[in-house]
């Protein structure tokens, strides 16, 4: 049995009267890539917001149920900022903060109190290298992050998500705004990162989950339909008929 990094128990989220997540439970294992697939509006992105508790900052959101990280109930943590730093989030559309490339990556360590220029320099270089962006931007770190191309900006957000040394990296449909070549490069990056952290990969592209994920979860309409080894999910052996139909594109 593998170690559980995250344990989600009977999680429910609603926005006003609209149920976004309707009671789901599953484990995320240490150092795995967990793919989460499912059509739009099935609660995948909301799930990520619950993990780092930014859901609390969204007006009208109500959460019940429990999430454990390394056995600790995240609702009961006194340092929510540390929790957020231990989880890296990459959003669907790249959000380059309106700061220089350097400042984008150095933002998180600075907010956490790192002041020494040496440390910041090291962190920026390490993260940009990890995100496969360093060679393209090393000569112009002071230019605006928002001037980069879409694919570069997405790698910049990945570098930013890595800058606070997360234990869990969540990618929310990271490839919808970038070209296939960049997507492949980032997928290579993810494979390398797997040894250092746990990765949750929310994706609309079922083939992406098939390529990368150790296990895959299928979410639909706020419910967890099935979670199993990726091989199983993408085979005839999928326990639920819906899953089979979805991954084979005959859904609906």
């Amino acid at each position, binding site marked *: 049995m593998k170690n559980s990094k995250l344990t989600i128990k009977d999680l429910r989220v609603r926005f006003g009267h609209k149920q976004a997540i309707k009671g789901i439970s599953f484990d995320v294992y240490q150092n795995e890539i967990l793919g989460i697939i499912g059509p739009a509006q099935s609660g995948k992105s909301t799930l990520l917001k619950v993990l*780092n508790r*930014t859901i609390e*900052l969204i*007006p*009208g959101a109500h959460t019940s149920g429990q999430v454990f990280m390394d056995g600790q109930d995240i609702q009961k943590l006194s340092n929510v*900022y*540390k929790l*957020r*730093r231990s989880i*890296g*989030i990459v*959003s669907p*559309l790249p*959000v*380059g*903060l*309106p*700061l220089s490339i350097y400042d984008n990556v150095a*933002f*998180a360590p600075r*907010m*956490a109190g790192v002041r020494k220029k040496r440390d910041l320099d090291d962190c920026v270089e390490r993260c940009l290298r990890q995100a496969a962006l360093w060679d393209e931007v090393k000569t112009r770190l002071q230019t*605006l992050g*928002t001037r980069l191309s879409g694919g570069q900006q997405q790698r910049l*957000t990945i570098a*930013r*998500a890595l*800058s*606070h040394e997360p234990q869990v990296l969540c990618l929310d449909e990271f490839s919808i705004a970038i070209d296939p070549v960049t997507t492949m490069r980032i997928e290579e990056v993810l494979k390398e990162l797997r040894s250092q952290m746990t990765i949750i990969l929310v994706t609309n592209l079922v083939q992406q989950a098939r390529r990368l994920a150790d296990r895959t979860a299928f979410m639909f309409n706020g419910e967890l339909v099935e979670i199993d080894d990726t091989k199983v999910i993408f085979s005839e052996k999928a326990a639920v008929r819906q899953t089979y139909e979805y991954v084979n594109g005959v859904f609906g």
Partner: protein
Amino acid sequence: MFTATPLTLKNERSEKAARLVFLSMTLLMVIPLLLIILHLVAKAWPILSLDFLIKNPSHGMRAGGVFAPLLGTIYLVLFSLLIATPLGVMTAVYLNEYARDNALTRIIHLAVVNLAGVPSIVYALFGLGAFVLAAGIGRSVLAASLTLAIMTLPVIITSTKEALSSVPFAFREACWNVGATRWQTIRHVVLPNSINGILTGIILQVSRAAGETAPVMFTGAVFYKAIREGDFFAYGLLDQCMALSMHLFTISTQVPDVPDALPYGTAVVLLGTVLLVNAFAIILRVRLRSRKKW
């Protein structure tokens, strides 16, 4: 294949018509404005000089310059902005960034928007009752500045809120995701990217504070007060003062036999002060926009 059809021709005609209509409306706006300024300057021409700016009114307001009222207006505008800006900006930050969307904040929002539309005479009476009488400050620069501050506050709050909410929500989420607090997010990302709009809103209120007559007439501006010419610290906070708007009202309606050029000159100085501040605002905006980051 690419030849014009009757439909495209029709579209082109309406395109031209629309352009013409909008252009003429713009000119219709600009021409009267230029005419007014030209008229004012022409009428005031004989009296305009440096002396006019640095001499007090004299001979029962029928001669001399506008030093005392000009300095009074500068004081009133400056102090009212010093009071209203921090108060208004901080309120707007709270309402836009912290406050939850509930019945109370909606009432506050509604109150602020409605207060922005209250006529200035109502603020004048409020200032008279609250600051001059109830608080016992008496008719003074301070009471008048407070009244002007209360008058400009709702607009500053509204425009600041507008500027803050123009910063994309995704930026805030990105900051929260990396473990920044709300205040860190506001300080490092939201404010630097909305400062442009915030300043514009504030500076537009300068012209309003400088131009309003009623609020200062009831709370601190006087008919006539001689001060030492050239002394820029001539008014104390609790002194009464003269003000350009009130001075203009006085010499054009209350004093007989005032030479024509005098009220026109006063109007030009008032207009010039406001235009100067607006020009400053435009320069500031252009400089900040060149640093605009997305």
